[in-house]
């Protein structure tokens, strides 16, 4: 019964607050890739894996009054901040979602910046390729972000850290 909506609400609740649509997208993608049963389908877009379904669901939750979206001006652009509303918390209490270790993983990801999560999610998206091929993909498809070899190594290390958390 609105289980997929409930999972997303749970993710936002355990994260406390998520700032940035891109960050939210990447956090859910990474969580899905490492183990958690999010249903949203992702495709590769400008900033890496992106889910139209996730965007839709977030907008629906805002319209339902379960999520609070605050639009903030940041430099030359707008940024969005998401928290769960009281009615969202009440809905979740009626529709419990069991996802052990989710809080630990998402809290950690929430502490990273969106640029790094974009890199981590891109590395995970190409997990069928060798590390050298992944690096090539990152340098070609994300040339504007100017990621370094060291950052790519760090992304691989970070993925392993997250995997340890769910063991």
């Amino acid at each position, binding site marked *: 019964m609105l289980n997929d909506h409930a999972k997303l609400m749970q993710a936002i609740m355990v994260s406390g607050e998520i700032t940035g649509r891109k960050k939210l997208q990447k956090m859910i993608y990474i969580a899905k890739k490492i183990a958690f049963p999010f249903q949203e389908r992702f495709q590769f*877009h*400008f900033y890496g894996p992106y889910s139209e379904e996730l965007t839709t669901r977030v907008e*629906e939750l805002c319209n339902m009054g379960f999520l609070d979206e605050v639009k903030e001006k940041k430099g*030359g*652009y707008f940024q969005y901040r998401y928290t769960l509303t009281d009615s969202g918390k009440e809905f979740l209490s*009626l*529709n419990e979602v069991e996802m052990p270790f989710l809080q630990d993983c998402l809290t950690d990801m929430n502490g990273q910046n969106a640029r790094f999560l974009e890199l981590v999610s891109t590395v995970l998206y190409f997990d069928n390729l060798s590390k050298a091929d992944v690096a090539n*993909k990152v340098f070609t*498809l994300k040339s504007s972000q100017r990621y370094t070899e060291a950052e790519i190594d760090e992304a691989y290390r970070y993925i392993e850290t997250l995997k340890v958390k769910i063991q």
Partner: protein
Amino acid sequence: MAYSAEKLFEEKVFKDPVHRYVHVRDRAIWDLIGTKEFQRLRRIKQLGTTFLTFHGAEHSRFNHSLGVYEIVRRIIDDVFAGRPEWDDNDRLLTLCAALLHDLGHGPFSHSFEKVFDFDHEDFTRKIILGETEVNEILLKVGPDFPAKVAEVIAKTSEKKLVISLISSQIDADRMDYLQRDAYFTGVSYGHFDMERILRVMRPREDQVVIKKSGMHAVEDYIMSRYQMYWQVYFHPVSRSAEVILTKILHRAKQLFEENYAFKYEPLHFTSIFHGRVTLEDYLKLDESVILYYFQIWQEEEDAILRDLCRRFVNRNLFKFAEFDPAKEYKKLAELNSLFKKAGIDPEYYLVVDSSSDLPYDFYRPGEEEERLPIHLLMKNGDLRELSRESEIVDAISGKRRTDHKLYYPADFIWDDSTKKNLKRQIRALLEIE
């Protein structure tokens, strides 16, 4: 002569109700159409369960794939050829990607993907790169050609212009399915002046743009898309059939996991249920196979599986009520509890389904959005995002429309032979008493 440049001695044409003719001159395209993986698309309907609402909607992904190929061919050969921004070396790559973009779709993809966590794009990649007839043909073009085609379809290629022809807010995929689905469903929406749009398309480094003079044709296309989504794709009767289909798959999976003894062993599903489906298994699936199982599962001992299959096969679908999750989530919890007490498993018989569409969205540099907007090419050579020029598009830009419905089996709820009081309470809550 290199295989990539090889032409058929005589052009082949397919008669097509939407584009009149689909023209094939390239040997590689002709060979790809003849592969067993591409022919399989004839056995997968383009619109899934929509045929239960619009009886004409029996067309297949094969028709649509040829249509997308034909639109892209016309753009490249009739509009882009000879323009400096277009690299004709990308011609065959673009045509192959257009033809094969839906290759990984399975039967009733949406439901299958939901229940078994499949991704048809993943299977498209596997078919193109795996040991298949399609891969064999693509390899004749060049050793890295299959990977290049797969990358364009997955949108991970650096060739952004090629990607945008097949996947963007105004692409060949949408232009074909809107017209084709309108034709086969018989609705009067979905029509727009595609010839005009094709004539005003221009290649740019990273996307296709539209000459300003074609703006009104694009407005018409966006409105057609809006109408088709709400009148056809989200039709509540088709959604009801899809809800039941999804629940059948859920039930069969659950029974399998509980070691239920099926009267007829579901051989085609075994590896799927185990979560280790191979490409070979996947390619054996088509709608005739799935419908065969639905047919025989009508005789199963399990009452839920039997009932759901009977409903799907005989089109005895769930009824629906409007549902506002924000205001009615407590009512939903109450209904859930009443269903359980009445002996009707809410997991299978009380379903919230949501439909949502965004007709057009824009992206302006600096914002955290992901959708590439439609750009108009102005007379002075500047590019302007469509909604900044079109009042009609501006009025609907970024505005999502969502609709939630609650599906339930009306015959169960009205059957007062058992649990009469509980069912009366259910009907009162559903406001159908």
